Each structure stands twice: as C-alpha cells, then as structure tokens.
C-alpha cells in the first residue's frame, strides 16, 4: 500500500477563511484603496478627471491648505503626547495596584474604571461639556466650595486649554484599556520569578521596577501603538464636543475633523471628496510611517520572555 498520494487540497481552510476575507475586503481593503485612488482625481465641470499628485501638491504647497494640515497634525501630535504621558502611566499604575493581592474590592474598581470605555463618544463629549460648562456645570461650583474658584476657566472655550482638556477627557474615557491589558500581563507573571526575586532581596517597589516592568514591556509597546493609531484616527470626541470647525479658532482641529470638513463639506463649504481623500491618504501615510518606525525600530528590540 505504498502508492504515493498527492496531498489533498484542503478546501476547508479556504471555506473557513472566506467569510472573514470577503467581509474584510469589502469593508476595509476595497474602501482603503479606493480612497487612495480617489485622491488622484479631481472634479472639473461635473466630470471626474485624473490629476495625478496635484491634490497633494495643493495640500502641502498651498498655504491655505498646508497651514490647516500642519495645525491639525501638530494638534494630533499633542493629543497623542497627552495620552502617552498621562493615560499609559496611569493605566500601568492602576494595573499594578489592582494586581496587588491585598487590595479589597478590586473587581469593583476594575469595572468602575473600565466602564467609560464602553460609553459612546457622544455621551462622553456631552457629559463633560455639561460638567465643565460655566453656566450649568458642576466644575465651577466644586472649585468654589473648596475656595479655588479663581482656578476655574471656561476651558473648552479657550484656545490655550481646549485641546488639552479634550485630551484629558479622552484619557478619562480610555484609561481602562491599558489598565486591562497590563493587568492581564501582570497576572501572567509566574509567582516563582517574584519569589526567586524575594530570595535575592528584591521586594515591593523594586520588584515592580526590576522584574515586573521589564516583563510587561511588550504589552506597553502594543498599547503605545494602539494609542498611536487610535489617536491619529480620532474624530468623534472632538466632533461631539466642539463641532466640525473644531473651535475655538481651530485649536482642537485634528486630522480627522479636518478630513471630515473637507470631504463632506460644512455649512456653505461644499464637500470635496477628492481633497478629502488626499487628506485621508496623508493620514494613512502618517499612521503607516508611525507603525513602521515602531515595528522595525522598537518591537524588534523588545525581548519576549518565555515562561
């Protein structure tokens, strides 16, 4: 019975992959490439004409467009910075506290901190707008009751504070995600390692910084890249809180709102799908470069420990 049989083509693999591939192609890959394609066209007298890279030349060369683009990119970078220096350290700290075996009600805290993540942007934007409102908000009253009324500002209405305020609102909403991921990573560290460290006299804070932190670095890396992608694609919170013009004076304008305004139009400004696609392509480029830097520059240097 030694007839060499040709390996059967395993159909079930294709069948099982097909739904995901088809859906993903239809809703992600096709629109992505179509957007890239659309950015190379323009509309002249009701006709779509090929213009090559002209839209990008306008976007980066014409001061009217490039000023807005760089402003949005800089705001986006600041938005990301706030998340990196506030959200992620707080997330790690919360996870470290929650994973401590001595903490009571830790399940309650975990849920309470995670709940804002599942709320809609519209609710979060609206709720915080009300909290911070100079007229009905509780923020002025609370500051007043502890004698700090002078610290109160109509934050969302001031150019110098609005973006930072919204970034912090976003941090409040999403701090649960890094917390959960790090929490899971911390739980997966075997007790033997910590006990071995204890034998060598490494306990408490030192145990965290010398043993746990290096072990969760890959998770922190993943969180950073997720934050980066999410922040540079952000749109909803700014739109919900400040509208498509991202006031005051475009101080909260990020790439998402800039793209929305251009693509769909706003008030009397008619939508321009081709310039909008050019901005979307530029956003795609920014994110692609960022992710590549991370993958090739940082990810490869992180060491994964096998337990």
């Amino acid at each position, binding site marked *: 019975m030694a007839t060499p049989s040709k390996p059967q083509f395993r159909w079930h693999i294709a069948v099982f992959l097909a739904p995901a591939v088809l859906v993903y192609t239809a809703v992600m890959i096709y629109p992505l490439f179509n957007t890239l394609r659309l950015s190379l066209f323009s509309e002249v007298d009701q006709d779509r004409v090929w213009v090559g890279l002209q839209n990008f030349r306008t976007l980066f060369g014409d001061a009217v467009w490039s000023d807005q683009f760089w402003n949005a990119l800089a705001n986006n970078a600041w938005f990301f910075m706030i998340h990196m220096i506030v959200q992620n350290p707080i997330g790690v700290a919360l996870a470290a506290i929650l994973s401590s075996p001595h903490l009571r009600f830790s399940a309650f805290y975990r849920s309470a901190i995670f709940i804002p993540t599942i709320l809609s942007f519209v609710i979060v934007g609206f709720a915080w707008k009300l909290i911070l409102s100079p007229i009905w908000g509780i923020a002025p009253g609370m500051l007043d009751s502890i004698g700090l009324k002078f610290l109160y500002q109509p934050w969302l209405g001031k150019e110098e504070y609005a973006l930072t305020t919204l970034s912090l609102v976003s941090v409040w909403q999403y701090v649960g995600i890094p917390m959960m991921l790090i929490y899971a990573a911390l739980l997966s560290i075997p007790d033997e390692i910590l006990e071995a460290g204890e034998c060598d006299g490494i306990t408490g804070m030192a145990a965290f910084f010398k043993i746990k932190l290096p072990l969760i670095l890959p998770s922190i890396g993943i969180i950073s890249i997720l934050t980066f992608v999410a922040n540079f694609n952000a749109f909803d919170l700014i739109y919900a809180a400040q509208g498509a013009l991202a006031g005051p*004076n475009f101080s909260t304008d990020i790439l998402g709102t800039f793209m929305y305004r251009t693509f769909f139009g706003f008030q009397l400004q008619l939508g321009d799908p081709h310039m909008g696609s050019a901005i979307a392509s530029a956003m795609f480029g920014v994110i692609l470069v960022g992710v590549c830097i991370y993958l090739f520059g940082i990810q490869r240097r992180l060491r994964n420990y096998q337990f």
Partner: protein
Amino acid sequence: MKITTLKGALLATTLFSATAATAQDATLIIESWRNDDLVIWQDKIIPAFEAENPGIKLKFTPSAPAEYNAVLNSKLDAGSAGDIISCRPFDASLALYDAGHLADLSDLSGMANFSGVAKAGWSTDDGSATYCVPMASVIHGFIYNKDVFAELGLEVPTTEAEFFATLDAIKEDGGYIPMAMGTSDQWEAATMGYNNIGPNYWKGEEGRAALIAGEQSLTDEGWVAPFRQLAKWGSYLGDGYEAQTYPDSQNIFTLGRAAIYPAGSWEISGFNAQADFEMGAFNPPVANSGDTCYISDHTDIGIGMNVATENPEAAKIFLNWVATSEFSNIFANALPGFFPLSNATVELQDPLAQEFISWRGKCESSIRSTYQILSRGTPNLENDTWNASVAVIKGVESPEDAAMRLQNGLASWYAPQQ
C-alpha cells in the same frame, strides 16, 4: 362577433378606467430636510391643497437636516428622488440645477409674486433662470425680555448709542446677564452677530452687490464697522461665554436670566413654548437716529421640481399653489418665525412674529452677505467669518485685522476682488 365586440368594449373600458385612475392619482413625493414640520404638512398644508386639487396626492417625506444634502444627491443620481425637492438656498441647489436635476421654473406664473431679493437664493448668478419657488425666510434682530425691561425702566433702543446704554444699565443693575450669546458653537457670532447688525453699516443689498461686483472690499468702513460693534459685545455676555453653546444661550434667555437675545426669527415658536415672560423684539439699532434701517431677511427654504418627475403638470400646479397667499398664510401661522417671501399680504397671529415681519415695512431687506457666490472657494468666507467674529468678540483679534484676514482670503480666489 358580438362577443368579440363586447370583449373589445370591456377591454377598452378597463384600459380607459386604468388610465383615468393613474391620472387621478398623480402622487407627488416631496423631499425635505424639515422633519420638524412633518405634522404641519400632514395636518394643514396637504389637506388644504388636496381639497382644492382633487386628483393630486401629496406625500411629505423629510430626512434628517444634517443628512439631507447627501441623501438627496444620491437619490437624484440613482433616479429615486421625489417629484418635489425642497431647496437649500444658493450653491447647494445651484449645483443641483447645474447638474440637470432641478427644472427651470422661470416661466411659472406664480413667480411673479416674488421680489428679486427673494428669488436671489435660487437663481443662477446672472439671474436669468430661477429654479425653486421661494418658500420662507428668517429675519434677524434682537428678542428682549419685556419684564426685565419694565423692571429696570428701560426703553427699546433704536440707535447704537442707546443700545449700549441699555446694555450698560442692565450690567450695572447686575441682576441679569445683559446679552445671552456664546462663542462655543461659533456660528451665532457670525449669524446673529456680524450678519445681524451688519446690513445697517454696509447698507444691505447695495453693499452686498458691490462686494460681489468687487466695487467694495471687506476692509471698507461699511464692513469693518460691524466688527467694531462686536468687539464691544464681549463684556456684556455672561461669565464663561467662551464655552457657552447655542442651546445654553437659548436656555439662559428663556429661563429669564438674560435681558436681550440676539436672535433669528426661527426661535419664536421654541421661545413661546419655553419662556413664561412676555417677549418683544427690536430691529438692529442704526448708527444715528433717523438713518434708514436694514435687516437681514434671509432666504432659507425654497421648493423646486425634479426634472425626472413623471407628473410635471401636477408638480407645477402644486408649485403655483405654494406661490399663493393661501399657502403663505397657512405656512406662516403654523410656523411663526418662518416668513413667507411672496408679496401677498399675510395675516400673522403671533405678536412676536408680527413684530419681526413689521420691519419689512420700515427697513430695507437684505440677505446674509456671505451666502451668495462669495463662499464658493477655499478658504470658505462663511466659515472664516464665524472664526473672525468669535475672535473679535473675544478681543484676540482687532476688527481691522479680522477684516483684513477675510479680505485676503476672499481675494485669494475671487477674481473681482483681486
């Protein structure tokens, strides 16, 4: 033989009655973004029209305001749009006309009932073709709390000096916010600020036409003066007005916490329902006593015909009816604050709406300066005017700088201004 004849006769009657039935049941579908008005159409407007025009049925199918333009465009492209199209003013509808979706209605007999200003919102740039019947406009001015004015012994201001004296008096009393407006949503500063008080300075249509023709520029005195007024407004708005939104302002006023509200007439029905004090209105104060006053009487809603309609005759009958005083009366009284644009006389029941419409008799009407032609390019003049008006009210930009910025932006793409 007989049987065949009978059959033929039967067939003929069936065919005849079938065609008669379709002719009787010409159904016109109306596209609109005014989903707030659904009840008014169903209960008042449609029954009134159908009673007079048996054989034509109307169906009002509104979509959400923010989605209307996009939904309508895709329906028109797909050939599934209704017979009657509600028209946004200016470029959005002009684009539909240019794309061959809206029929030219210049020859419609009812068009004679409308003035040139009324038709401007739905005419080609040279005015040669009008493609929508003007339906409603909104008038800008100031609504005030009569109780507060009586309590503080204030008179309705007619001049700029009196206006600021009134504001000072309210501020001095300290019990009320002099003026309820915020800059968070930005558009109020331009629409209820700049374009509300502006026509008095640029002399309404005269200045607006000169700006479009390139004979005046935004740095001329007539166009900078309204910014100088706005620059003084900041100190009369409530604490934290920088983060105050449009609904905040509405609530502050209807709760009786503010004395004056820079308004558009569309607020009337909402305010009537919310406020439990008596309200009055005054038109934007003029610079010197005795000057001609100008108001922003802005064309807002029009109604036109889809070129692809199967019932063009029925659609024209309906559009002619929209141009009559009968429609105007039903519409204006059902929606106080949206004023009919036809020259026909209209009896309004609402006292506040009466006050607003009475200004048409004593002042010159104009429309918002940025809406026709001037907001076609990049940078968009309307959006920039929002931004500049807010910056001036906050005091972060001087009136002259703001005007210069707008002028530079406009001149960068608009040939007559170069």
